[in-house]
């Protein structure tokens, strides 16, 4: 008995070795390789200017991925994020577009995100609708509301503060990246270090266990969707500041990109596993790939193909080769 324990707990178990590194840091290595190879193929890729561009572009996706991470760890999926982004942005710019409207604009946008998340969460927990469908349905409905509100023609101007946050840099460091960093730290700590975060993992790992542990699993799940909705709304505002023009489709494609980024970053769709950092690295990979293929001057068709291949390969590269 005693020696059994010794043999099997000996050496702390955190096995080193190549396979271990590969399975835990595969995605980090992948990103580094990707950047290195891109830099070699196209030197302009590594120019300060271009790096700054990519940093500027990673923030909105990164912010969405943080929320998506919560939802996916909770065994869910949020397809409504892009619709939330667009709706928040469209409604926010529907005001006169001056800074004095800011508190109102931000409050309303966040309310849209939170409200959508709440509906998603309640559908998933109280009605047992599968997350894919619940969020698909809210995505469609939100689009309907948005069109009904704007009559299809969004108008108004983006407040100057959003322009600063969305597009400007401070000594080469974009403000939106700083925002991403702040959010990543806050939500990273929330997930990895707070009691709530632990409840997220337990609920995602096994909802029944969570319930029997007295965790209000429903409330945890709903909170996950609300976080995702709110972050999507923030990302929508940041993205509206990026160009200063808002159309009905701000954030188009972010729903799938954010899921793909999360999965590439090791957040398993089966729930209970993954980290914010992983998700952000996944997001960075997507941005790098998009930028690199442009820098290589590849025709648009190849860009699309390469993106598809990278999605599959990065996920395959990371996947734990368990028995």
């Amino acid at each position, binding site marked *: 008995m005693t020696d059994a324990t010794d043999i099997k707990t000996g050496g702390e178990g955190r096995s080193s070795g190549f396979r271990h590194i590969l399975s835990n840091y595969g995605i980090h290595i992948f990103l580094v390789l990707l950047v290195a190879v891109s830099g070699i193929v196209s030197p302009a890729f590594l120019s300060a200017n271009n790096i700054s561009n990519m940093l500027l572009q990673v923030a909105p996706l990164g912010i969405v991925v943080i929320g998506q991470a919560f939802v996916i760890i909770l065994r869910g999926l949020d397809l409504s994020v892009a619709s939330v982004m667009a709706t928040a942005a469209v409604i926010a710019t529907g005001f006169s577009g001056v800074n004095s409207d800011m508190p109102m604009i931000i409050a309303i946008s966040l309310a849209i995100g939170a409200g959508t998340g709440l509906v998603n969460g309640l*559908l998933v927990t109280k*009605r*047992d*609708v*599968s997350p*894919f*469908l*619940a969020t*698909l*349905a*809210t*995505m*469609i*409905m939100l*689009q*309907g*509301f948005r*069109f*009904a509100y704007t009559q299809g023609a969004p108008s108004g101007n983006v407040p100057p503060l959003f322009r600063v946050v969305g597009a400007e840099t401070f000594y080469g460091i974009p403000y939106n990246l700083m925002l991403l960093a702040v959010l990543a730290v806050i939500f990273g700590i929330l997930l990895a270090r707070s009691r709530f975060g632990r409840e997220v993992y337990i609920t995602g790992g096994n909802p*029944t266990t969570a*319930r*029997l542990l007295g965790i209000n699993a429903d409330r945890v799940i709903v909170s996950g969707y609300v976080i995702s909705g709110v972050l999507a709304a923030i990302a929508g505002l940041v993205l509206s500041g990026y160009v200063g023009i808002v159309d009905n489709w701000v954030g188009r494609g972010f729903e*799938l990109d954010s*899921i*793909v980024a999360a*999965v590439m970053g090791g957040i398993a*769709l*089966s729930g209970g596993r993954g980290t914010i950092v992983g998700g952000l690295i996944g997001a960075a990979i997507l941005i790098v790939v998009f930028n690199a293929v442009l820098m290589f001057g590849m*025709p*648009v*068709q*190849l*860009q*699309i*193909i*390469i*993106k*598809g*291949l*990278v*999605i*599959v390969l990065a*996920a*395959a590269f990371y*996947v734990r*080769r368990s028995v």
Partner: protein
Amino acid sequence: MAKQSPLSTFVKRNRGLVVVIVLLFALLIFGSFISDRFRTTSNILNVFEQSSGLALVSLGQTLAILTGGIDMSVGSMISLLSLLTSGLMNGDPAMILPVTAGIILLGCMIGAINGIGIVMLRIHPLIVTLGMGAVLQGIALLYSLGPAGKAPPGFKFLAYGKVLGLPVSALFVIALFILVALFLRYARLGRYIYAVGDDQAGARLMGLPRSGVIIFVYTVSGFCCALMAIYLVSRFGVGQPYTGVNYTLASITPVVVGGTLLAGGRGGVMGTLFGAYLISLINNVLNFMDVSTHYQLIAQGLIVIAAVSIYVEKRKRI
């Protein structure tokens, strides 16, 4: 063990199908109150015909979902195959047969690649097929940036032809659904599809051909996409690079409305067929009611949620 009556067991285990059929009739009755023209045979036949394509794509999707997977590449697959169909036929009636056969084969192959990718790479089907979808979309655009070629004269028959006053395409689709339904019930492979969806790891331990089942269902999905591509070329007269784009998400709705659970292992194709009818009928009724698009979107979302909430088995809460 209290034995339940066969009927109540059937209803319990096929809730999706039953609910969808009931809703379908309810909507038909409702529609005929709205407008006299709704009741016309030609309108009903239109709806019947309009739903064929959607039903076709959803057929393959149903099988993928029954195994607990999902096929997110259907849209791109349809686009690519439709381009190839019209591009290769290019108006030449002699090419109809060889191209049709070739496209079906190609669809099956692409589907098989999806399946093999899922089996070999051990990644979630959602990710594999999303990636594959992007690759196929790229290839489609490489082949042609615009509509390619054109359908040969007479090819329209597939989509618009009628026998005994009924659209051939719709009849073909019904026949195909019945065939697949019988297959699911009476072929061993059909039973294994349910088993794999119910418990993947278990299927492997039981020595069931799990990999084979997965490759098979995605191949069927590819096959259905090929049929859809051919049908669209017949319907539209040409293939286009984005023709299928809406079907990726659209194909999932009839499946779940028809009572197949996204988690896999439960459901069936007949529910999907009626689910597709229901969705087309809803569109039709909303059109007759002059509901503006904005509200149609909202209605669509509500319907998906409502339909799905009906089937959900309240999990036994412990």
